[in-house]
């Protein structure tokens, strides 16, 4: 045996667990919460797919593989110095744009009615719009993290560039069309601008422009009829309980019938009978509600809350603008997606095709979410080494 190699190994091991090791600077609480969410998500995916998935466990196995890959990606990203990430940001952004572009070429595929996939073969497919969230987030943070001379506000040019990047990404996503993701991208942009220190009046002005845009969308009927119908159904699900109101009515029934303690894993009759559509993806929270009851579904919300609050702590404790911006924007993204997803299942938000972070079935989304956790961890690890 080569001694130096042995020594190298020892030193790697020592480095990995030693007092100086980055492992001890990881945010354990957040990681435990994320792990718990992934485990719960796996159980819920199993429960909601076991009656129809190939071999009963076909989908849950795939989900576990996705989570495994996601954890590896998370770990890999956490190793990277987030300031180096700043250099990669344009590359990631361009790649995500390319991905979105491919979707609208013949390489794109339609799954479950949304044309947002690229088939990789072997039963695997990616959804570039999930990566686009990361890409946009990073490029906006990169642009807005460098303040103008003698100020702590971003430069006007950077702001315009950030808006352009956002417009480009959202435009490509709307071509699919995927309103839910476009809304997440809008939230990411807004969060970047607000947290980046853009003047209030600019934010106000942009808000007005956005409001005018929304108004135009409705006024000139640029939405697909089903999107308008979903919104109408949200305002009053009784309008058409068999049609568009069906999803929200059925998901409310499933969650409510769980009562306080739930019907137990695999015990949910609404879940078994597949009354709620898309139950392993967008409506996975209904399974938690029915089978784990109020206590279980509240636990899911609280775990997500822990991730968000710990993320905000990381953002606050970070010394550099880029890290803070990235962390803050990630929290806004995850918070928005959590609120919209849970909210639509319990009838306080309109139905939008957004998955529940860490819980819903869906490879690309799982990857993107776990990568964002990796980013948060990377920021936390590095923030303290310069204290």
């Amino acid at each position, binding site marked *: 045996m080569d001694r130096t190699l042995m020594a190298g190994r020892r030193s790697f091991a020592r480095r990995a667990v030693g007092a100086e090791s980055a492992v001890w600077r990881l945010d354990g609480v957040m990681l435990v919460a994320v792990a718990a969410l992934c485990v719960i998500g796996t159980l819920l995916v199993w429960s909601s797919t076991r009656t129809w998935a190939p071999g009963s466990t076909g989908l849950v196995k795939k989900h576990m593989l996705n989570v495994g890959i996601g954890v590896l990606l998370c770990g890999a990203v956490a190793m990277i110095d987030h300031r180096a990430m700043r250099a990669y940001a344009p590359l990631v952004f361009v790649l995500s744009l390319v991905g979105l572009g491919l979707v609208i070429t013949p390489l794109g595929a339609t799954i479950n009615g949304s044309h947002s996939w690229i088939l990789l073969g072997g039963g695997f497919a990616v959804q570039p719009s999930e990566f686009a969230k990361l890409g946009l987030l990073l490029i906006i943070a990169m642009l807005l993290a460098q303040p103008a001379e003698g100020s*702590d506000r971003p430069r006007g040019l950077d702001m315009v560039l950030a808006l352009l990047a956002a417009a480009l990404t959202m435009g490509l996503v709307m071509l699919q069309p995927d309103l839910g993701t476009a809304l997440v991208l809008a939230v990411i942009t807004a*969060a970047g601008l*607000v*947290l*980046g*220190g853009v003047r209030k009046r600019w934010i106000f002005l942009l808000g007005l422009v956005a409001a005018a845009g929304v108004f135009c969308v409705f006024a000139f009927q640029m939405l697909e009829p089903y999107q308008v119908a979903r919104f109408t159904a949200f305002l009053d699900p009784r309008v058409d309980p068999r049609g568009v109101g069906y999803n929200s009515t*059925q998901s*409310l*029934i*499933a*969650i*409510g*019938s*769980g*009562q*306080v303690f739930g019907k137990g894993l695999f015990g949910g*009759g*609404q879940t*078994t*009978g*597949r*009354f709620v*559509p898309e139950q392993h993806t967008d409506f996975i929270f209904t399974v938690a*509600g029915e089978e784990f*009851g*109020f206590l279980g*579904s*509240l636990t899911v*919300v*609280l775990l*997500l*809350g822990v991730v*968000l*609050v710990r993320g*905000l702590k990381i*953002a*606050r404790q970070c010394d550099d*603008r880029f890290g*803070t*911006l990235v962390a*803050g924007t990630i*929290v*806004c993204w995850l*918070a928005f997606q*959590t*609120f919209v997803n*849970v*909210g639509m299942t*319990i*009838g*306080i938000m309109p139905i939008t095709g957004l998955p529940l972070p860490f819980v819903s079935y869906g490879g690309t989304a799982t990857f993107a979410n776990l990568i964002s956790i990796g980013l948060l961890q990377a920021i936390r690890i590095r923030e303290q080494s310069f204290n």
Partner: protein
Amino acid sequence: MIRMRTRLVVLQVIVLAVLAALGLRLWQVQVVRGQELVNRATETRTRSVIVPAVRGQILDASGRPLVRNQTSLVVSVDRAGLLRMPDQGLPVLRKLGEVLGEPVSSLQRRITPCGPGVGKPCWTGSPYQAIPVKQKADTREALQILERQEEFPGITAEVQSVRQHPGGRAGAQMLGYLQPVTEDELEKREGLKAAFSGVDLAGRDGLEYVYDEELRGKAGLRRVQVDRMGKAIGVEEQRAPISGDTLVTSIDARVQTIAEQALQHAMKNAPQADGAAAVVLDPSTGRVIALASQPGYDPAVWAGGISAQGYQRLLSNATGKPLVSRALNGMFAPGSTFKVSSVSSMLRAGYPINGTYNCPGAVNVGDRAFHNFRGIGLGSMNLHTALVKSCDTIFYKAAYEQWLKDGGLHPSPKKPAKEVFANTARKFGFGRPTGIDLPGESAGRIPDRTWKKDTWAQTSGTSCKRARTGYPEEKDRSRAEFLKRLANENCLEGFLLRAGDSANFSIGQGDVLVTPLQLARAYAAIVSDGKLRSPRIGWATVRPDGTPVSRIEVPVVGKLPLSKKERLYIKSALSQVPSDGTARGAFMGFPMKKMPIGGKTGTAEVWGKQDTSWFASFAPTYDPRFVVVVMVSQGGMGASTAAPAAREIYEGIFGFAAYKKKAALPGWRPVSKLPKFRADGTVAARVVTAAAGE
């Protein structure tokens, strides 16, 4: 960086607020509204399917089935399923129509739920129920559907039990029919609003209606767990159905058939006859042995849901409205058969039973002469002969005298009219339903002073208008003139009981109306113990395994206003009619020595129509075991149409017919013991006398 930190704090507040909002809403949905949503979940997740109980049989007095169940292949349509299909399942229906040989439009109408603007033939059951479109599919049709299920989604063919009538048309009105139960009825009955896949029926007429509760049993329940597509994925609850009780009746299936045939023959012999009824009672018990009405219909038309034309046909004049039982609902003037009541009225009014009365050709009633039949005077006679020879003038005179005694047209308020004739008739059970165990019975009519006033109050408007305008649409001048005079008379004094009204009433003519059943039970009371009974068809109910459940008693509802001596006096007079009186011709050659028949003919005039032919009778005269009343509407003379029909019934009962020597009732007595059931519910062979009868 400070600014960023501040904004991060604001962000944290927002995030916490959002989380709190989610938590609160979850609490509201899962804890506060939890139970409500559990109920809604159960509603969406389960389908309650009613499993119909096997309906009880209806048996005759010897245990022969009048109505039984027969399994058959039933083709049903799942309408809710069809509506979800492209084009509302029209292609599937079209294909089904080809297999069943029925136009699509007819199928569509039959599976459309009844509602405002949707008339028969529509679907009266639950919209979630599989709707039977053919109840007696043959195997070929069923196989075509079952073997190509992918071509017939939503169509099923399964074995179900349907009602079968071994007697065919005999007693169809009395037995009644079934129709699918409505959703409301089912909810009331089972206490739940259930979608049900089987066919559940409710009695809609006749015995099926009256004894519906006993016959139908208790439906079972299957609560099935279904998925979003309505596919059953498991059974949550199962309760087996309890079969209905068997109804044993006092009807004798053979006598019933004989009676129907006798009526058919009578109607054939009297070509203008448009309806007939026969009632056979056991006078000592008040039980019904046969209740026949013509025209009849085949009750098989109800099975499988009746078609539009089929239903209309049953209601139309062209077929003579065969749904209506003439025995209960046919109201006709009783003619001379009514004289038993009038003789009693005379006795009650104080006319001596041993007195001698003159029977002239005509008597003056008020300012009009009332004639005997054919205006022939019959000389002096007692009341006995007055009944046998059917003298009218004796009764005219007595009724007129009583009318005068009551104050004539204007009774004084101080001394109210006694109306002996009307009140005696009431005591014979006329003017009110007999209370038989069948629905929708008619009351008949006794035209007394009160009735006259009430009727006038309702009709004087029309009469007075007609009195002014006349009848210009009437082509026959003299008839128009007569009608106008009549209208004028009715307008001015229609509220008054005129002398002529009283006279007509005494011989069962004019406004008095009775049903054959009323007349039969009045005669039964005369020839038995003088007690008026509410006739019963149902005799007992037993469990399907033969365990007795309950015996149906015959209630006594009144007493004839006659002493035993007076009753026997009338009975003995009636006993002479077929041998010496008006019915002698009809009973020529009948073995009167073996089986003496008593009775009374009746021929009631109906304005503008042929006479109503009546014969009310009993046998044997020395110990009456049967009362037979026959009525033939527009049948002509009682002696020429109704009496021969009654004779035919007697010949059948006793086995006197030349072509059929076997007595329908061996021993010449009504069945007096309930049939015996074996442990498996089948009926043990009848007492051996059945074979040894003759």
